């Protein structure tokens, strides 16, 4: 009996495909349902944000940093603020740092909720998405009261944060955290432990620890492979040393270590750790000013600095070069999603086309963060 003659087919996925989490394009070389490889094509959302920084100055660039990663804009705010403070030798008041951590951890919750919700939707489960988005809306309501916007916050300034916590906000936040914790367990029963869901994710897109380090993965993607590396713990910044929290890592409980399910579960457990940090921060926050005195015409001395913050998508690096004028000479952002895109071509070899969608979702790739 002669074998069936098969032919390779080149498919174009994106850039307007609804399951690619933004404007992403993949050139898929497939043989039937099985992919030979998927080549990511990035650059559709490039807005020259790094160049804009050279034109608008230090204070004016803060709202633009929101657009670097609009799902977790607090971290980009914090990265830019900290980089400018390091350049200008400005010390942020203690209460300002606490406000930053509280806002950022709330933002991490919102970002992870969106991530795990869309994960379910990419597989075809519509209901968990609405549950996750409902919780995210409540966080957005809290952040809206704090800083006046729901997505592009522009909450932080060079030298601290723009506005103090409004009266009564801490009680509301604590009440929300009390409400969220049982919801997370309910969400796990609804989606995470569902047998069909586990079967779709376990043993798919396996990354070994060595590969993850070689490919420069960061954040939950790296921790999903069993590497315990969190900037908040290992290179502490801001007031994170004040808090007691764990760094969850993947353990291969559902399949193989470093598969899509491990990366997903790391995000779920990280949310519980964020709740822990938030409770401590809301209880411990000292009184005092929230913003240091920074001149309107901020001119840091010539020099360069590199700042690393642990955003929801991992280690985010801000490299700023100052030449002593009111405008930065060069700004570069190093983001986690760009590194995650690099490994897709390797992981996709031999996968089914339907699994490519879950692979992208499990890496939690956000299109504006890839291109800036």
């Amino acid at each position, binding site marked *: 009996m002669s074998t069936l003659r098969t032919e390779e087919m080149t498919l174009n996925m994106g850039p307007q495909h609804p399951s690619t989490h933004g404007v992403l394009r993949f050139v898929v070389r497939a043989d039937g349902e099985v992919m030979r490889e998927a080549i990511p094509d990035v650059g559709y959302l490039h807005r020259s944000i790094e160049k804009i920084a050279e034109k608008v100055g230090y204070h*004016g660039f803060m*709202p633009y940093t929101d657009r670097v990663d609009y799902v977790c804009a607090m971290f980009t705010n914090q990265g830019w603020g900290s980089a400018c403070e390091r350049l200008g030798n400005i010390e942020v008041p203690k209460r300002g740092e606490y406000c930053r951590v509280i806002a950022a951890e709330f933002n991490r919750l919102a970002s992870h909720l969106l991530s795990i919700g869309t994960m379910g939707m990419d597989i075809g489960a519509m209901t968990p998405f609405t549950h996750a988005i409902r919780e995210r809306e409540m966080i957005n309501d809290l952040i809206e009261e704090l800083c006046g*916007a729901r997505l592009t916050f*522009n909450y932080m300034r060079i030298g601290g944060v723009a506005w103090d916590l409004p009266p009564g906000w*801490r009680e509301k936040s604590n009440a929300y955290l009390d409400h969220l914790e049982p919801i997370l367990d309910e969400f796990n*029963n*609804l989606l995470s*432990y569902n*047998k069909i869901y586990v079967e779709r994710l376990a043993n798919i897109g396996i990354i070994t620890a060595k590969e993850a380090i070689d490919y420069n993965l960061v954040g939950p993607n790296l921790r999903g492979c069993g590497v315990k590396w969190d900037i908040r713990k290992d290179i502490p910044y801001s007031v994170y040393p004040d808090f007691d929290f764990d760094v969850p890592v993947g353990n291969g409980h559902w399949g193989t270590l470093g598969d899509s399910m491990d990366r997903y579960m790391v995000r779920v457990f990280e949310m519980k750790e964020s709740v822990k940090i938030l409770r401590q921060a809301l209880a411990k926050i000292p009184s005092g000013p929230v913003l240091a005195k920074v001149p309107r015409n901020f001119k840091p001395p010539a020099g360069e600095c590199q700042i690393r913050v642990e955003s929801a998508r991992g280690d985010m690096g801000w490299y700023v070069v100052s030449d002593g004028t009111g405008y930065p000479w060069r700004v570069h952002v190093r983001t986690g999603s760009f590194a995650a895109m690099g490994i897709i071509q390797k992981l996709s070899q031999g996968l089914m086309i339907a699994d490519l969608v879950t692979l992208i979702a499990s890496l939690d790739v956000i299109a504006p963060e890839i291109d800036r």
Partner: protein
Amino acid sequence: MSGVSDYVQNIKETVSTIFEGMAITASHFMRKPYTVQYPDRMAVRVQDTLPFRYRGILEVDLEICTGCLACERLCPIDCITIVADKDPVTKQLLLSQFDIDIAKCMYCGLCSEPCPTGSIHHTTEFEGADYSLESLIRRFVKDPVIAYKPKKGPETDQRIAPILNRGMAYLDQWAIPGSDAEAKAAADKAAAETAAPGEPS
């Protein structure tokens, strides 16, 4: 035999976890819905329920605008255009143009922070759809007006005083960066309690 028992075990787990999920979904029939019917079936307009710090469409109170151009200088995308010239005869600052292009505006709030009187401020209005880009340019000056001059002491003009009070209240609660709102509220509460000690709070 292990193949058969695995097969049965898998089916059992699948069915039980599906029913667990279905039970959670069904329990939501008993809970209060979180969604609202926007915009026509709401008891209160959304605009009235938004928090004080909400950054909606910008508005300018020309009566208290000092013509200092601080907002125009700080806007990162130059969506504010102000023309303020000295009148050659009366030597007063004359505002002849104050345009905000809300199609360009990114609602960052940097312009309302340096305003000395709270003249330029965010409203809670957000419904701004229109048919052309030109109609999205908000022109606040109809006829050239004389810029406001801050006075020492309280404002005496009956027409301007309430507007200025609104502006200063806005600055107090929102736009002055780094104001310790929580501590202030606590101090106010403590002051109120010491003033009237017998009354229950």
